[in-house]
């Protein structure tokens, strides 16, 4: 499970360097997120731009992270690929998270 974190302004951006968050790595994802996001700032932005597939186990792991970071930190999402966005929409989890088109900072600029 390859995640990387960087500070961008007052937020911490955690980038998922994997192409899927599925049942095989959902638990690892939660554990790594706990390490990278704990004692973090009020805004944690999860950059999902490289993730092309999320199943309900992966979705559940992301929701679990939202829950364990609250109330100290708020988990926001960025860079949802169309497929991942569809899963959030079908499950109505797109109404639960603040979702940004892309994460601030980093090397991947929109339209670049």
């Amino acid at each position, binding site marked *: 499970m390859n995640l990387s974190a960087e500070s961008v302004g007052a937020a911490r951006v955690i980038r998922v360097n994997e192409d*899927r968050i*599925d049942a*095989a790595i959902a638990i690892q994802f939660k554990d790594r997120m706990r390490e990278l996001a704990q004692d973090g700032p009020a805004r944690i932005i999860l950059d999902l731009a490289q993730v092309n597939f999320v*199943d*309900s186990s992966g979705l*559940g792991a992301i929701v*679990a992270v*939202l829950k364990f970071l609250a109330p100290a930190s708020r988990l926001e999402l960025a860079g949802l690929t169309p497929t991942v966005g569809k899963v959030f929409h079908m*499950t109505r989890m797109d109404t*639960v998270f603040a979702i940004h088109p892309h994460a601030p900072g980093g090397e991947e600029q929109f339209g670049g």
Partner: protein
Amino acid sequence: MGADRHAADGSIVDLRFHADPFAVREALCTAMSRLGTDIGSDDADMLQLVLAEALNNIVEHAYAGRPAGDVRMIVRRDRGSVACLIEDEGREMPGLRLPAGLMPDADVPHCELAEGGWGWALIRDLTTSLTYERAGNLNRLAFRMPLAPGRAGET
């Protein structure tokens, strides 16, 4: 990864594999690459989701508390839809029927959000002709996923 047969009856994917999360992932990736551009990419993404949910349920429930056995997954492209058959030798569905699959409530405080339970709701939303039968010691789940009209074969 187990046997992969190209049957003469038009099967495009026929895989047998161990019921564990990594073998499931590998089978899904194999199936998706085998299907290639045979179906549109949006349809392929949703097909992968449906198959993943069905297979994860087998890993997590049918083989829960017992040694994991095999799963067989057959995906066949038909006119206007994809027909799928998934078989396992795990525990039968409770009451020998499929879960209702209600979508977990999103309109609740964050601390009360479900961390799962979307699987059957997604399967039911995305498929037609969903059937389950217990045949001897075999669970047999069959369904179709309609393909977007005119999209088949598009990249």
